[in-house]
């Protein structure tokens, strides 16, 4: 057991140690490689958690069947993004957008972000979870503003203010959960430990839990990027370095959603409390349809895919809100597929923006002719994210839609409508970006295709064949989610 505990700590300590080291070391080559090595080691440590029995939950940290999926995904995308980041920042250094001092800062923040996200995923203490998500937000704010242009600073400021308000609301919800738990469990640390909370939730005051959940959903929902609270997301994606866009879309949104899911399980354990499902279904649908329409008027390529992230987070929230084994399974699968596909797309977009020297869609055209590898992978990514067969997102979207048709056919109509609207918008853009006459200036670019192809291959493989072990695992987790 002590061995298992040691590995949990490894997942947290490797990024922390790497952050300190990277803050001190100069030089691009060395630090970029060190960054990759640290994320690879973290990923391996997380992977070993998958194949061994879980240690008993402690007062601060917990590894169970639910979060191990998130941790594995988190560390994997963290690793591939660091590989992409190495070639990306190399180009940024050459063009002078980043200076060596800022690069050092960037690498340290990247590792700190990884550490904070892993703490948030492993937290068994709702206070610790809140602190970790706050830290993750702060590090990303700093990285979004790293180019120090007018736009980047404004995007960071907007993200900062909206994120802080969200975080404040989430803290108020956390305090209310403690107030609800305190008469039953007693004062002190135990009343903030998630496993203890769930065990005693049936005796909590339901009215207080209801109010708490609304605050938590609004607070963490801001970080998920759900519709009325999404305003920070497109700016933060568009103005920051592209590896950060990939990590934001692929990972940080998931981490915030994971926090909502933990509290959803807590609510479900109390029969008298309001069902959290309908709230999540509503927010999910609103985000999906709103973002689908917003996709049409985008002129900035990173902003386009940021709105697509809002759309997909809407679908995932919708699926988890529906609940039940099938919808939860679909939600989990969709979350995994979206993380892989969206970060893959951002890898491609990052190099495209470097090759074209702009993010304006109007100045990007005919990519399949000028940069066949990049162009065709972007095409594959867009086809995947639009939800066409045979790729993984088609399967998960199909499952979401079919489970909705079976349980609430009326809800399926706006869902399918939103999906089709988004599909149309993406194809409209795809045509201009990838095919036709090449437009705009063109520079050669040293791209790292490894992470991009790895993600696309995984998404394709998942669309063609899901290993039975993985299906069984996801089914088991869906049962846990209720």
């Amino acid at each position, binding site marked *: 057991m002590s061995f298992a505990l040691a590995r949990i700590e490894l997942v947290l300590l490797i990024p922390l140690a790497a952050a300190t080291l990277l803050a001190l070391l100069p030089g691009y080559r060395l630090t970029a490689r060190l960054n990759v090595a640290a994320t690879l080691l973290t990923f391996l440590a997380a992977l070993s958690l998958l194949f061994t029995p879980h240690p008993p939950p402690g007062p601060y940290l917990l590894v169970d069947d639910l979060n191990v999926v998130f941790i594995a995904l988190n560390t994997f995308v963290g690793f591939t993004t660091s590989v992409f980041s190495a070639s990306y920042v190399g180009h940024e250094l050459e063009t002078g957008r980043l200076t060596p001092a800022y690069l050092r800062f960037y690498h340290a923040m990247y590792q700190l972000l990884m550490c904070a996200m892993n703490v948030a995923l492993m937290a068994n203490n709702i206070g610790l979870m809140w602190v970790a998500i706050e830290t993750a937000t702060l590090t990303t704010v700093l990285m979004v503003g790293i180019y120090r242009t007018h736009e980047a600073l404004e995007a960071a400021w907007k993200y900062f203010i909206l994120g802080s308000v969200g975080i404040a*609301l989430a803290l108020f919800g956390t*305090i209310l959960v403690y107030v609800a738990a305190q008469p039953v469990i007693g004062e002190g640390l135990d009343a903030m430990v998630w496993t203890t909370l769930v065990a005693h939730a049936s005796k909590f005051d339901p*009215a*207080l839990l209801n109010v708490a959940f609304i605050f938590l959903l609004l607070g963490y929902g801001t970080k998920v990027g759900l519709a009325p609270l999404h305003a920070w997301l497109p700016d933060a994606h568009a103005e920051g370095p592209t590896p950060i866009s990939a990590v934001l879309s692929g990972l940080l949104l998931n981490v915030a959603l994971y926090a909502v899911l933990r509290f959803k399980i807590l609510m479900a354990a109390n029969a008298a409390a309001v069902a959290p499902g309908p709230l999540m279904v509503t927010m999910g649908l609103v985000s999906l349809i709103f973002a689908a329409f917003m996709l049409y008027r985008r002129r900035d390529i990173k902003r386009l895919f940021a709105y697509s992230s809002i759309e997909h987070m809407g679908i995932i929230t919708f699926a988890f809100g529906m609940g039940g084994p099938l919808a939860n399974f679909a939600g989990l699968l969709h979350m995994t597929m979206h993380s892989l596909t969206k970060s893959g797309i951002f890898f491609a977009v990052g190099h495209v923006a470097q090759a074209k020297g702009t993010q304006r869609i109007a100045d990007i055209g005919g990519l399949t002719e000028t940069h066949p590898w990049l162009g065709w992978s972007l095409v594959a990514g867009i086809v995947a994210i639009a939800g066409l067969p045979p790729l993984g997102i088609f399967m998960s979207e199909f499952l979401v839609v079919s489970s909705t048709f079976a349980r609430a056919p009326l809800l399926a109509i706006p869902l399918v409508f939103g999906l089709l609207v988004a599909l149309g918008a993406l194809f409209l853009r795809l045509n201009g970006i990838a095919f036709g006459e090449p437009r705009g200036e063109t520079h050669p670019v040293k791209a790292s295709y490894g992470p991009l192809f790895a993600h696309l291959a995984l998404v394709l493989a998942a669309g063609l064949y899901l290993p039975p072990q993985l299906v069984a695992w996801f089914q088991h987790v869906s049962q846990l989610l209720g």
Partner: protein
Amino acid sequence: MPNLAFDTSHPLAGGLVLVSFVLLYQDRLYSMLNVYALHALVLALAVAWQANIQNAPHLYVTAGLALGFKAIIIPVALRRIVERLGIHREIETVVGIGPTMLCGMALVALSMVVMLRVTAEAAPIAREDLAFALAVVLLGLLVMVTRRNAVSQVVGFMSLENGLVLAATGAKGMPLVVEISVAFSILIAFIVIGIFLFRIRERFDTVDIGALDQFRGERR
């Protein structure tokens, strides 16, 4: 004297709501900063009193932080930033003071109704503190929404955060309160440094949030 504990914590928490109202109708930056210092001072007293009646000495750390950092250092720092950067000292409001005050009263009534109803089983002190804390949080949000100037929005956020600290200390025996208040102080320090950096680089022509609205990133 079983009621002394309650009788003292009640006006202190209520006083915080009152000062939030005062914050709501300030139209000059300097007076807003002064009111915020008063806000933090009342919070420090309320937290110190909670530390006393709960026999929780660690809460004195939070109270000291509120007194030293929020009531003295932050207002002084912000005042110097405003001076050095020559930020407009009059605050543009989105809605007039009358409707804002009415809205504020409605929010206080709402938080009383909601919190007193749902916390029927909790201890009376915690109940009152939570209701007042929610009122302070909502008033802080209102300040942020009705101001167009970045510094006054930050002041609104800091008053909102004071409400959260009040709620956390009112919940008896809540762990991690000190850690959370320290984390929030770091957050605020970041925000204040952020304002300073924004201006010192002369990237913004104005620290006016209205200018942010012109930016959608797609009108280049």
